[in-house]
């Protein structure tokens, strides 16, 4: 069984339970917070991925983190299940799949927006409205900042990318000048 299909099974099961209890969005936020913690904490990642660590110890550590972060019981239970099954290393994929299912259920679409400088609230609102009009679904933003793009924006919706960054324009200009 591939990691993608496993992630899809877990995500689908969580979505059904969370939808039944009306906690789709809170659970998503909880998983996102836990995933950010994992992404930023290398020691924790290595501990949870270490096969020599006892399953019970792994579950106990995850339970303590869940308690300290104040996550919802459903989120905590799900994370402990993942820890017991040794699937926490695939949390990122599960979360992306869960978000996709959530967006499908809610009729919305996530747009990952990369900017060189912070985007003010008014610009975000205009961008969201514009993306909603373009995609035909309610768009919500996930803003990422990357000064390397120099200026402009890059928006990714699923596999579709709208690249209006200065870095890409310069790269195109470079290619044109080299080919000329």
């Amino acid at each position, binding site marked *: 069984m591939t990691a993608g299909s496993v992630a899809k099974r877990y995500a689908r099961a969580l979505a059904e339970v969370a939808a039944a209890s009306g906690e789709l969005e809170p659970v998503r936020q909880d998983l996102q917070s836990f995933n950010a913690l994992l992404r930023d904490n290398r020691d924790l990642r290595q501990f949870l991925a270490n096969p020599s660590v006892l399953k019970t110890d792994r579950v106990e550590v995850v339970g303590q983190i869940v308690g300290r972060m104040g996550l919802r019981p459903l989120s905590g239970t799900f994370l402990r299940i993942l820890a017991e099954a040794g699937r926490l290393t695939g949390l990122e994929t599960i979360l992306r799949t869960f978000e996709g299912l959530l967006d499908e259920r809610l009729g919305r679409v996530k747009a990952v927006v990369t*900017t*060189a*400088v912070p*985007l*003010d609230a008014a*610009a975000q609102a*205009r*961008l969201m409205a*514009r*993306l909603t*009009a*373009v995609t035909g679904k309610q768009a919500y933003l996930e803003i990422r900042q990357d*000064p390397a793009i*120099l*200026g*402009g*924006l890059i*928006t990714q919706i699923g596999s579709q*990318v*709208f*690249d*209006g960054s*200065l*870095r890409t324009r*310069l790269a195109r*200009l*470079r290619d044109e*000048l*080299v080919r000329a």
Partner: protein
Amino acid sequence: MRRLGMVHRRRLAGAVTLPLLFPGLALAAEAAAHEQPGIINLNITILIQAVNFLILIALLSRFLFKPLTQFLRQRADGIQKALREAQAAREAAGKAQEAYRAQIQATQRELAAIRDQAQREVEAERQRLLTASREAAQRLVAEARAEIEAETKRAKITLREEAVGLSLAAAERLLGRALTSEDQKRLAEQYIRDLGGTN
């Protein structure tokens, strides 16, 4: 042959000595000659001498001339036969010589044909090698020319890439320093306006 000669000699001796065996007959003839002298005295002596002569002739013919003639004929036949055989041998030798000459000529013609064929093949091979060498040389020249052109093209591209890369790196540094927050806002607004239209 030697035996035949001995037999003839024996018979000849017998014929010559025959008058000696009849001395009375000879003496009687001699006495008659003294009785009647004349130009021609036809007496018994002459008759006896004639008879003796005839006997001698007969004996000679019987024991000398015939064997001798036969011997000479046989010898002539042998010589003729030897001559015929020699002629036949000469003719055979001539034919063999002719055959050898024809064979030599045929061999010479064959050798000439082989030599001509070999010369033609050598010439054809020389032409083929010459053509192959020319083609190889032309191919090498073409490949070298293409390689030089490709190298030149690559060098130009590399130079252009380096020049463009340096220019754009400088432009990026300049943009990074020169772009104000207003410029960033303007870029963002332009992006939002153009979204979905150009990408």
